[in-house]
């Protein structure tokens, strides 16, 4: 990414001239606002930013940002974006996607993007529902959910998007929540800074078809006990009294109270984003599966590995250096030839 120090943007510079058409109250507004607020600080001239989306309420995102953009087809945003980034490693390429878009129809492109570590910034608008098609359950909907397509309750288990990304080899995974603007801005900023696939799951409320899905994680009364805010190098402490912490008991995480005398802050697991071995990240992604644990937000994992796009470019540069830039003549004569006089 090219750093551009001359131009100073404001959030408004990233707002396009199109009316925003989400339902009033939709969590997507907050994501749009945080992205617009963060982009002035990521150090990329706006003509070098491209936002690619698929289809869904969330995918309309592209139209509202005054950058380059493509509102693609359902599920294919990571593949379109991947092609673009490989062609043009100089660009900052973002994917805005819904849970249906990215994880249902687009699941394969998503996991292959993570595996290949293509330098894309993927924002998952996870509202645990199909918004645009008016309320069917999605691959992140909880089992038993009653929706238009599951009138007797869905029988499917949900994906844990972060576990899936990790299983696919992702180098950067993080989570935030629409009702926590500051935190989201931080995550967007870190995603932008990471070189490689950055995956940010954002809990997003769909107030029309799945209202309140994340209330316990954002309402004043409950959020402190329900959310564990991950900070690199810091012990995993949470709770309204900040007296709860996570320890590892063999291979099993456990919530303990550090005020009760059995455990002290020194026993508490210390978060590290950058462990090359991914166990800690796995452990953390699992926490939200189980009501006994808090739901972590923050950066779970952030490790560096050469990216697909740069490796392809490097190969080209290297071979061109060794063999010289190819010419038509060379191309035509790259095999046995003979001449008829």
């Amino acid at each position, binding site marked *: 990414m090219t750093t551009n120090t001359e131009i100073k943007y404001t959030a408004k510079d990233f707002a*396009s001239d*199109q009316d925003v058409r989400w339902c009033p109250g939709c969590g997507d507004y907050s994501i749009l606002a945080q992205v617009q607020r963060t982009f002035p600080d990521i150090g990329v*001239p*706006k*003509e*070098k*930013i*491209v936002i*690619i989306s698929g*289809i869904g309420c969330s995918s309309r995102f*592209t*139209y509202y*940002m*005054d*950058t*380059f*953009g*493509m*509102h*693609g*087809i359902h599920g*294919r945003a990571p*593949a*379109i*974006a*991947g*092609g*673009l*980034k*490989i*062609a*043009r490693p*100089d*660009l900052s390429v973002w994917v805005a996607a819904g849970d249906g878009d990215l994880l249902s129809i687009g699941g*394969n*492109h998503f996991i*292959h993007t993570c595996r290949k570590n293509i330098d894309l910034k993927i924002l998952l608008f996870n509202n645990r529902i199909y918004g645009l098609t008016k309320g069917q359950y999605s691959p992140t909907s909880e089992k038993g959910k009653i929706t238009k397509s599951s009138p007797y309750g869905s029988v499917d288990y949900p994906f844990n998007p972060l576990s899936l990304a990790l299983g696919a080899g992702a180098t950067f995974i993080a989570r935030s929540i629409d009702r926590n603007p500051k935190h989201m801005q931080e995550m967007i900023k870190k995603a932008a800074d990471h070189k490689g696939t950055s995956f940010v799951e954002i809990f997003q409320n769909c107030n029309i078809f799945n209202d309140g899905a994340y209330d316990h994680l954002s309402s004043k009364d409950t959020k402190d006990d329900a959310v564990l805010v991950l900070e690199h190098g810091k012990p995993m402490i949470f709770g309204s009294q900040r007296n709860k912490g996570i320890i590892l008991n063999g291979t099993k995480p456990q919530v303990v109270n550090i005020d009760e005398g059995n455990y002290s802050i020194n026993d508490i697991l210390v978060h590290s984003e950058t462990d090359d071995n991914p166990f800690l990240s796995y452990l953390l992604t699992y926490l939200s599966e189980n009501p006994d644990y808090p739901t972590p937000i923050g950066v779970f994992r952030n490790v560096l590995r050469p990216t697909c796009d740069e490796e*392809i470019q490097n*190969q*080209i540069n290297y*071979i*061109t250096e*060794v*063999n*010289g*830039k*190819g*010419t*038509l*003549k060379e*191309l*035509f*004569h790259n*095999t*046995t*030839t*003979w*001449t*008829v*006089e």
Partner: protein
Amino acid sequence: MKKEIKKLDEVTIRFAGDSGDGMQLTGSQFSDTTALFGNDLITLPDYPAEIRAPAGTLYGVSGFQLRFSSQDTNTPGDHPDVLVAMNPAALKKNQKDLLPGATIIVNQDAFDLRNIRSAGYNVNPLEDNSLDGFKLFKIPISSLTANALADSSLTVKEVARCKNFFALGLMYWMFNRPLEPTLKWINKKFKKVPALAEANTKVLNAGYYYGENTEIFETRYTVSPANLPKGTYRNISGNEALALGCVTASLKSGVPLFLGSYPITPASEILHQLSTYKNFGVKTFQAEDEIAGITSAIGASFGGYLALTTTSGPGMALKTEALGLAVMTELPLVIINVQRGGPSTGLPTKTEQSDLLQAFYGRNGEAPIPVIAASTPGNCFEMAFEAFRISTKYMTPVILLSDGYIANGAEPWLIPDESSIPELSVKFRTEKEGFAPYMRDENLARPWVVPGTPGLEHRIGGLEKANITGNVSHDPDNHHMMCELRAKKVKNIENDIPETEVFGEEKGDILVLGWGGTYGAIRDAVIRAQKEGLSVSQVHLHHINPFPKNLGNILKNFKKIIVPELNLGQLSKILRIEFLIPVESFCKVKGLPFTAVEIYSKISSMSGGKK
């Protein structure tokens, strides 16, 4: 012993053996040498669908046919004059294609009980007179090879693997070809394994001198060099030529090439080829599936690359949704479909032309896309270039159809003079003043503006676009207009493509109208019919959507129109739509190309005999 040398105009040879017998290598060595010698030629490999089926089985037989000539050659030959059969299965599978009098050379050593049984013979066909009528040469190729390598340090298995060079040497002798090109090749190929280089050299010579010295063969043949246009030549297969054409478009436009693709027979070779051209700036991306293949290419096109995706039948089906996106976003994109036998997985290694209607209509909504088709291995080069020309000039996806027959077949190709290839002028808009994403130039093309262009930030996508502004629009009249605009843009290309040429008289009884890889067989058949005085002409289409402007008038000048196709009549259907005329479909859906004889017979029967 001095042998008689007979001069022939042309010869068709087929090498056949087990998948592991190296027949493809033998065939291509013979072709290269023959091309260097100056003959015109066409080759046709025929692989089994299995990678390496159990030895001796019928389905494990691999073949390579070539026809070389002192004249212009259009097909790899209908019936081999010479069959080299390395085992009973190879004989069994190929014998039916021979005419009486043909020469058969067999590796006698391979005709043991086990192989005979595996091939499905009850008795040894070399001994039951079933080959009477052919010139049969039973040669113990395996033993002779082993003898030649008696002193070698190679293992028995390695020795056995050399036997194809014996057969090759023998054929070189028989057709009076030089050994040098192959000797050179052996030395280069086995530079690091001198033992193998030496062994193969020995065996090649052994084969050659076996012909020279034994009394089995009375005659050897020669086919004089063809009177080819002056210039430098190379052999080229259709898939190689496609790759070359794409890279040429890139060099001539100064715009780098991006290929997004997923392997599939018989298109994979294009991916293989293009992934070697790194110092030409070519980026190849082996995607997770065909959908990612095309959509990554769409992304690259948005980024200002010449974007390509390559595939075959089932893969094409998977790309159809994304084709619609390319139509709506009006981005340049070339889609190459190397057709194979369908439907479904069908006959993956066999040729067919049955994806034409899919190319025209295989998308949801009104989604017009130009369609062009290559006719010969060499023509693949021009058509790839043409696809990029149309696609960038008109900001549209273009479908280029090839097929398994021309993809794998090869012919000598006159290397074009670099300066004779036109520049491909591609403009990226950078001017802010007056810009709108869906404004149009005189070709109805919208501007190509790539990310990174300051001040020209804009959004495109798959929802209907408002004319000029490109904003999402649900306006009824706008939608109708945009559908018509997109159709008109494609239709207008007819003003920008060459008129089609009639081979033969401009008026007459019969017009044979073809497209794609059937070109050679039709041409040979028409030449023969014309020689016999029939009133027959040929038109071969390279542009199918839109058709060349003069096609309608040409059609009116003939009493009957025959349309030979390797499908159940797909071009015929489009002709009926476009020109409302009856045509006679001549269909073959056998996974095989037409033979010239088949088409000639059709012409002949339709014309009711000579005129």
